[in-house]
C-alpha cells in the first residue's frame, strides 16, 4: 500500500492526510470544494509546525505527497481509502456507492466515523467484507492509537490490512465490535452531553466542570474543552446518532448544545465554543 485515498478534507481528513504523508505515503485528498482543500493545506501547514513545536518533528512536509482534488475519479488508482466526511448518514449513503464504482475491488474502505454503524455503511457497497471502521482521534498525528471497528462482514484479512496501514502510520489499533458509538463515543459523548447539561442548568461553569476532571481526576483535558476540540457540531451529530440508534432517552442532546451549534459556536475551529480561541 503506497497510495491512499482520503475522502473529506475537514479537520479529521486533513489530519489523516498529514499523518500519512509524514510517514511517506502518497495521498489523494478529495473534497467537494477547492476552498475546503485550501483550508486543509493551511491547517496541515500549521499542524506540521505544531508537531515541530511539541515533538521536535520535521517543520515542513513535501507538498507533492498530498494531491488535493475535487474529482472522485482520482481515487481510481488508490490502494486503500479512508473516508472522513461529515457524520451524516445521507452523505455517507451517497459517497460509498460512488467509491465502490470508482475503486478497485480489492481496495479496503475505512470509515473514519465516531458513531455510525460500520455494518450499515458496508451494506452500501458490494464489498462488505472489505469495509472497516477506523476511528482516529484528534489531532490525528499526535495520537498513538486508533479504535478499529469490525463490522458484521468485515474479514480477518481486512482487519490485518488496516492494522498494517496503521503500523505504517506509526499507530496501533484497538479492535472492537460494531455497536453504535463503539466504545469511545458511547462513553465520551454521553459524558460531554451531561457536562453541557450541568452548564445549561447553571450547576457549574464550563471552567469548573473541566477543572474537576483535570485537577481531581488528573485527566489532561476536561469534557468541555474536549468538546471544543472535537467541534460542537460533531458532538451534536454523534449524540443524535446515539439517540436514534438506541432509542433511549439517556442520549437526548442537551438543548444548550443544539443552541450553540445553531449559533455557529462550533468550538476551537470556529474560534468560539465553551472557550474563546481568538
Amino acid at each position, binding site marked *: 500500500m503506497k497510495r491512499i485515498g482520503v475522502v473529506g478534507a475537514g479537520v479529521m481528513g486533513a489530519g489523516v492526510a498529514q499523518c500519512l504523508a509524514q510517514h511517506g505515503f502518497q495521498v489523494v485528498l478529495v473534497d467537494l470544494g477547492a476552498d475546503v482543500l485550501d483550508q486543509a493545506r493551511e491547517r496541515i501547514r*500549521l499542524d506540521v*509546525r*505544531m508537531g*515541530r*513545536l*511539541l515533538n*521536535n518533528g520535521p*517543520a*515542513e512536509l513535501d507538498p507533492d505527497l498530498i494531491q488535493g482534488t475535487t474529482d472522485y475519479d482520482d481515487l481510481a488508482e488508490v490502494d486503500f481509502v479512508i473516508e472522513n466526511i461529515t457524520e451524516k448518514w445521507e452523505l455517507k449513503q451517497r459517497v460509498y456507492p460512488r467509491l465502490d464504482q470508482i475503486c478497485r475491488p480489492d481496495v479496503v474502505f475505512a470509515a473514519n466515523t465516531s458513531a455510525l454503524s460500520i455494518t450499515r455503511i458496508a451494506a452500501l457497497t458490494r464489498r462488505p467484507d472489505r469495509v472497516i471502521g477506523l476511528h482516529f482521534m484528534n489531532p490525528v498525528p499526535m495520537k498513538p492509537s486508533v479504535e478499529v471497528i469490525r463490522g458484521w462482514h468485515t474479514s480477518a484479512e481486512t482487519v490485518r490490512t488496516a492494522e498494517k496501514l496503521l503500523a505504517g502510520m506509526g499507530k496501533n489499533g484497538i479492535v472492537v465490535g460494531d455497536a453504535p458509538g463503539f466504545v469511545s463515543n458511547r462513553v465520551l459523548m454521553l459524558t460531554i452531553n451531561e457536562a453541557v447539561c450541568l452548564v445549561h442548568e447553571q450547576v457549574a461553569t464550563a*471552567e469548573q466542570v473541566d477543572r474537576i476532571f*483535570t*485537577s481531581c481526576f488528573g485527566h*489532561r*483535558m476536561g469534557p468541555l*474543552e474536549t468538546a471544543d*476540540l472535537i467541534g460542537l457540531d460533531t458532538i451534536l451529530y454523534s449524540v443524535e446518532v446515539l439517540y436514534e440508534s438506541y432509542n433511549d432517552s439517556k442520549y437526548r442532546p442537551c438543548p444548550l448544545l443544539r443552541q450553540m451549534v445553531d449559533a455557529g459556536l462550533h468550538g476551537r475551529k470556529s474560534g468560539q465554543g465553551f472557550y*474563546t*480561541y481568538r
Partner: protein
Amino acid sequence: METVVGSRARSDIREFIQAKFPGARFTDSDDIFGLGFATSLFAMQLVMFVEQRFGFQVDNDDLDLANFRSVDAMAALVARAAPAAVEQGVAGGTGA
C-alpha cells in the same frame, strides 16, 4: 537593561495570555505549561499571536516549546528574532 519597547512587547504577550486565562496568576518568569492552566495546544496559539503581533515568522529552529514557556522566554525570542518588528509593531499596534 530592557528597553521601553521590549517592555511593551512583554506586556502585550502577558495581556494575550491573561485574556485567554482570566483567572490565571503567573509572573513573567513562570512556566505557564508547568502551572497547568495552559495546555501544550495553547503553545501554537502563542506562536501565531507572536507572529501576527510582531510581524515575523518564527524560524523552524525556534519552534521549540522552551521559547514559549514563559513571558520572559517569548519576549527574548521576539527581541532576538525581530527587533525591528518589535519597534514598529509595538509603536503602532496597541493604540495606547
